[in-house]
């Protein structure tokens, strides 16, 4: 089979397995990732399929069936998920939330010259957000499998979770404590900054090519080039939180 031409969004699949339909290659990559396969294992599986398709002239779908079936047939050993290190990735995000919420709670009170009244609903909201994030990260593979395999149920669960948070804030109005807005704002801003810097530093310390999909005969430069081209995506979730906070703070300040 000759090389297949595909849109730019499939450039990685094209590079890794040029004789395989890139949509098929991408689906196999996702299926294997969901089964906890390493980048090396996925790269080898793609290279095997590519080699076979190039030699036989058959398409991957003809020779190997659907990507989900083939991933199942490969019977990869169950992944050893490192729960400790997975949970560590979420600590900066929890820190960011613990910084963001005080900033957003303090601003309206500050602009109106009042104390910040913390109510039971807000404490419950924090509890729900923290629990949800920790649970999702603790079983991240199972969580992603659930979202991809049952998207409707996943969206409904998300809506239910948001509904629960709104209900908690709306119904649980008993005041717990009163705080001065300035120290609270400073605490929030410092917490948000520290957690963001921590997240960025953690991201920088992660090896550039760690667990990138790479084929057995590929030279390291190609893998590094590919890793570099997607490196920025790792920073998006970390930098999103301060940006959101700044935007929401601006809105609160203008409309308070």
């Amino acid at each position: 089979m000759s090389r297949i031409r595909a849109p730019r969004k499939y450039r990685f699949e094209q590079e890794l397995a040029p004789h395989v339909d890139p949509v098929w290659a991408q689906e196999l990559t996702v299926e294997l990732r969901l089964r906890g396969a390493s980048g090396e294992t996925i790269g080898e599986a793609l290279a095997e399929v590519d080699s076979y398709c190039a030699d036989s002239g058959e398409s991957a779908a003809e020779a190997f069936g659907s990507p989900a079936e083939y991933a199942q047939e490969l019977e990869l050993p169950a992944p050893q998920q490192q729960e400790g290190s997975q949970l560590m990735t979420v600590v900066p995000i929890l820190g960011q939330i613990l910084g963001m919420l005080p900033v957003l709670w303090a601003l309206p009170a500050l602009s109106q010259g009042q104390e910040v009244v913390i109510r039971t609903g807000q404490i419950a909201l924090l509890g729900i957000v923290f629990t949800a994030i920790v649970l999702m990260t603790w079983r991240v593979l199972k969580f992603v499998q659930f979202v991809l395999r049952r998207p409707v149920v996943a969206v409904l669960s998300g809506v239910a979770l948001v509904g629960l948070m709104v209900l908690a804030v709306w119904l649980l109005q008993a005041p717990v404590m009163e705080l001065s807005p300035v120290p609270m704002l400073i605490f929030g801003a410092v917490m948000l900054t520290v957690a963001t810097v921590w997240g960025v530093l953690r991201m920088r310390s992660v090896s550039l090519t760690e667990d990138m999909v790479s084929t057995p005969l590929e030279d390291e430069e190609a893998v590094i080039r590919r890793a570099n081209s997607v490196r920025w995506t790792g920073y998006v979730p970390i930098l999103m939180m301060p940006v959101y906070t700044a935007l929401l703070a601006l809105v609160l300040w203008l409309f308070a």
Partner: protein
Amino acid sequence: MSSEQQWPSEWLRGVLELCTLRILADGPTYGYQVSARLAASGLGTVKGGTLYPMLKRFEASGRVDIEWRPGEGGPGRKYYVLTEDGSRALQELTQHWQSFAHVIDQILDRGAEPEEER
């Protein structure tokens, strides 16, 4: 025997490992070549989706070693080399299969032995 012959899939499942081990015994070879040789020998078409998971199992159980070699004007190829464990498995399975085939031949030639009267 025609290479287009279609055997019942449950028969193929039973002999595919043995036939593949035998092909690997001729020297290092790669997936497509195994498939092509099986087809040329009359076993019929063995799809990549059946062959590669089996080769993966051989690899995991130590029956084969693997070596990636750059392709000539094409992608690289994964060569499978039969190990000592693989050779032993081939010998045992071959003997087993021959005994089994002998039993089946006898049944087909003479019919099953009548049950001894008590």
